[in-house]
């Protein structure tokens, strides 16, 4: 073992430090590529180059193997991570598409007055459920300005029923097909009649008050503007020609224009204020048995059948 007391390295250390500083200074100040230091570098590269190349030839496959193993594990983890991310993004995309469709639908429902051509204010509401009697519960109630008697439209602006009960946050909508309410309607040419539900999907009862004329297929029946409904809401369509018996049309069958075969996700509550106060529950009950007194207007040309 060496003796540190006899072998003082300080002088060597200082010398080497000075040499290093000189080399650094010289190298930093040097701008020529042909100076002696550059030649030293070139010589060192020539000396070590073959050794490095030979070592690299041996090590490279091993390093590649190690890299491969490491990369394989890393790639597997990355693959799993990306798969999870893709699934999450797909779910987000689907949710975004659904929300976009909802926004479009709600936006169109806010503009139902344009679609129906009737100046009404509509309040979109989401259907929260349906009762055994077929009535719908929607998420808008008294706090949102919903009142009993307000007509309710589907997404397309077709009449589907009316509000029969409200709470602070919800409202109950009785469907047109289940209601025995009398809805006064008119043909495009002004022949008035009444429609009421039969309690079964797809059919409504149709009676004409006045002297009736034949009605062509696909004639649309719209509200007159009585019984709490604004004028012009499309209610039903005549499926086939209706011929009067004598000059009467009673207990005929027409199809609702709204699609009752599926539960709507959204409806539009028509915030319609007729000249009289909105109907309350008692009035609804009263209206159930009433027949509009308004006789309406007959067809001047003695025929009916204009289709829209």
């Amino acid at each position, binding site marked *: 073992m060496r003796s*540190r007391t006899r072998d003082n390295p300080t002088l*060597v250390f200082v010398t*080497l430090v000075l040499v290093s500083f000189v*080399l650094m200074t010289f*190298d*930093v100040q040097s701008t020529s590529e042909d100076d002696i*230091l550059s030649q030293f570098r070139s010589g*060192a590269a020539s000396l*070590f180059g073959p050794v490095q190349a030979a070592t690299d030839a041996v090590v490279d496959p091993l*390093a590649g193997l190690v890299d491969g193993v490491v990369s394989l594990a890393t790639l597997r983890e990355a693959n799993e991570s990306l798969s999870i991310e893709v699934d999450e993004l797909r779910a987000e995309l689907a949710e975004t598409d659904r929300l976009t469709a909802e926004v479009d639908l709600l936006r169109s429902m806010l503009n139902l007055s344009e679609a129906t051509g009737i100046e009404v204010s509509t309040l979109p509401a989401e259907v929260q459920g349906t009762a055994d009697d077929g009535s719908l519960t929607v998420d808008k109630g008294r706090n949102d300005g919903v009142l009993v008697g307000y007509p309710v439209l589907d997404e397309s602006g077709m009449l589907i029923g009316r509000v029969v009960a409200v709470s602070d946050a919800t409202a109950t909508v009785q469907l047109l097909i289940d209601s025995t309410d009398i809805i006064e309607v008119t043909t495009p040419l002004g022949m008035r009649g009444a429609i009421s539900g039969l309690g079964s999907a797809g059919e409504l009862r149709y009676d004409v008050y006045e002297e009736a004329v034949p009605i062509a297929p696909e004639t649309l029946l719209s509200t007159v503007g009585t019984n709490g409904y604004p004028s012009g809401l499309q209610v039903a369509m005549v499926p086939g020609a209706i011929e009067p018996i004598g000059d009467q049309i009673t207990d005929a069958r027409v199809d609702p224009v709204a699609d009752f075969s599926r539960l709507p996700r959204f409806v539009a509550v028509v915030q319609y204020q007729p000249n009289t106060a909105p109907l309350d529950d008692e009035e609804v009950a009263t209206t159930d048995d009433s027949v509009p007194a308004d006789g309406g207007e007959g067809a001047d040309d003695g025929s009916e059948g204009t289709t829209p």
Partner: protein
Amino acid sequence: MNQRPLMVLRAIGLMVIAVVLQTVVLNRFRIFGVTASLVVVMTILVARWLEPRAALLVGFTSGLVIDLLGASPLGLRALVYTVVAFAAIRLTGEAPLRSLAGVWALSLLAEVLVFVLGTLSGQGSLLQAEILTRAIVVPLLNLGLAAMLYPLLARILAPTERGVLA
């Protein structure tokens, strides 16, 4: 040939191997973006068995070769490794555990000196975010490397010790 020149030759051979392995192998494998510095580890460890002047010359030469093979100013690592070798001679004792502890401390010193001198010579900046990573990770990597190499160096440079961690 007596034992001292033989040990010096062995040490020089080990340093050449270390330089080649450093430039060809170790620089491929990066942990947190940095690599272990085998030449620094060897400079510190061989100082335990070599005469001080020989240890200084080995450190200086190793650093000079690294400088020649790289793009940093010639003499930068020669200076750093000379300082590291001198500190190793002065600070690390003959106990293996003390040598290993010295590897960590002197590796940190080497990293700091490289950055300071590199900054002074326009080769880098002390504001680099890498400095902190290097100062933390490189000494630890070097310590691990030293723990693995110590028995081998003890067998080569001091066959009588057989690399036993006392």
